């Protein structure tokens, strides 16, 4: 699978390669032959897409066909009956509405808190080494560990089974990851820019608002979309804090549905897709930002 060429051949081509500054290409070209790379690429794309295509096709198959054939693509006529039944039998619109409210407002709150905090940590070393470590530690901690007290606290303030209670918990739960994501964007702003602003008489808050913020907009966007999706997908806190249609978010709603109605695969696929599609639209709209946000935050030592 890996072919290593002799030193001579490489030497012969080396100068041309160096001239093109394309060594990475050359290296992967030699270690993986062309055929190998195309096969890998196909495998990767198919591995990602087949489960998604399968659920989409299942949602369009006739219920009778689903019972006899698990084929990837529909073999018989396609139908919208599963979608109609899913929206009729499951309060999907309500679940999606709840999810939207929780995700949208928790994201706004997260950004409003995370941006100034991250700025303060990086520029003024607020909290020394301990504060950032505490934030990271909180992110690594499994949420189940604090679920009993969170449940008790939300109940104590009377916000159990409300959207407000859940969105506040999501705000707090997503804050560490938001600080972590914003970190590299704020770090990249040259300090001289802010010092110039201070000399011009800007307060620290104005500097953040009018000098730094316009420069970190891509980071704020990436962090915002990621927090939005994380809140939309969040399962554990929604599971223990909401127990009625009026406050169930999409993940809890459809998991209840599967429990109560058994496995009607067509409807289940349609219901699941109803919650997937909005996320995929966001991913396609902001893919560049999302990739940048994830990789900048992820690879720093």
């Amino acid at each position, binding site marked *: 699978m*890996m072919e290593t060429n002799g030193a001579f051949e*490489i030497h012969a081509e080396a100068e041309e390669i*160096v001239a093109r*500054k*394309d060594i*990475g290409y*050359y*290296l*992967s070209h030699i*270690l*993986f032959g062309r055929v190998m*790379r195309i096969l890998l*690429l196909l495998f*990767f794309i198919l591995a*990602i*897409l087949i489960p998604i295509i399968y659920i989409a096709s299942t949602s369009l198959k006739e219920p009778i066909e689903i*019972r006899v054939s*698990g*084929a990837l693509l529909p073999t018989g006529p396609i139908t919208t009956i599963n979608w109609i039944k899913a929206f009729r039998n499951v309060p999907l619109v309500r679940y999606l509405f709840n999810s939207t409210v929780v995700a949208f407002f928790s994201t706004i709150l997260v950004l409003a*808190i995370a941006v100034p*905090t991250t700025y*303060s940590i990086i*520029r003024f070393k607020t909290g020394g080494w301990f504060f950032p470590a*505490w934030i990271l530690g*909180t992110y*690594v901690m*499994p*949420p*189940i*560990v604090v*679920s009993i*007290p*969170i449940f*008790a606290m939300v109940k104590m303030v009377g916000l159990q089974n409300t959207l407000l209670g859940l969105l506040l918990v999501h705000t*707090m739960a997503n804050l560490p990851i938001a600080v972590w994501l914003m970190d590299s964007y704020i770090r990249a702003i040259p300090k001289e820019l802010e010092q110039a602003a201070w000399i011009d008489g800007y*307060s*620290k*808050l104005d500097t953040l608002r009018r000098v730094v913020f316009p420069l970190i907009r891509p980071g704020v966007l990436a962090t915002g979309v990621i927090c939005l*999706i994380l809140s939309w*997908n969040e399962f*554990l806190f929604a599971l223990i804090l909401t127990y009625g249609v009026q406050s169930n978010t*999409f*993940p809890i709603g*459809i998991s209840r549905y599967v429990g109560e109605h058994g496995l009607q*695969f067509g409807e289940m*696929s349609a219901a699941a897709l109803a*919650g997937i599609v909005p*996320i*995929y639209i966001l*991913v396609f709209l902001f*893919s*560049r930002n*999302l*990739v940048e946000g*994830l*990789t900048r935050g*992820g*690879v*720093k*030592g």
Partner: protein
Amino acid sequence: MNATIEKYTPKLMALPTFIILLIISLVPLIYVLGISFTDSTISKPFNDFIWFENYKKALTDEVFGDSLVNTLVFAFVVTTIQTFLGFVLAFAMQRERKLSGVLRTLALLPLFTPPVAIAMIWRLIYDPNQGMLNYYMLKWGLVSAPAAFLGDKTLAFPSIMLADIWQWTPFCFLLCLAALQSLPRDPYEAAMVDGASAWYVFKRLTLPMVAPQVIVIFLFRFLIALKVFDLIYMLTFGGPGNTTQVASFYIYRVSFKQFQTGYGGALSILVLILISVLATLLTKGRELLLKRVE
């Protein structure tokens, strides 16, 4: 007045986060520690102080022991496969410029699909009667009878791992790709001019340069994988016969299904200690490893 505000602005900016950290980590941890010494239930918190009874019970609780082993095995296996696959794919694709935009967007799809929906997709795929996997295995003559992937004691855990690998390999791919593309070019040029073989260049240049970042990716993913909950809840509920029981799910079951919050608190504390020790060891191990690479 203004000068005072100005002086305290940095602290005020960080204050909301400080308060939130108190609410979601410090206060809860003290609460959990307190409750772990009591015989509490969900409706009667801080019921009877029984000191270390819950901890004694935990040490002899076989299901808890199994769940810890399962969590570690799960995190280690999926992280290893995801990092390896992600690296190989990233390495092979690192200069496919035309395709890389499309690939990156596609890679985001599994990562951001709601875990509940991922579980439903795989439940469909694995279904013994109507699922795609059995359909094709029967059709191609690989098996003679349909397999109950999620209902079988040996198959259930690997089946869940496969769903997790589908979800997270693209994440490792994206991070490895970014790491590879951030490598400096100069050392390669020198090696190429010196006539080093491609394998040699990969082994002696690429690998040492990219290793620190790949190790970080591995550690990051490993610590997140220890939290696994959603897939277990939706696919097997810890079954069949506790073979897919993991720490997070067991604590959930004890606290919110059996309502023994005191015992659940003790389990939480033990899991937290284990993860802290593990995280410290892994970071120390990383430093040692990096010294050796240098």
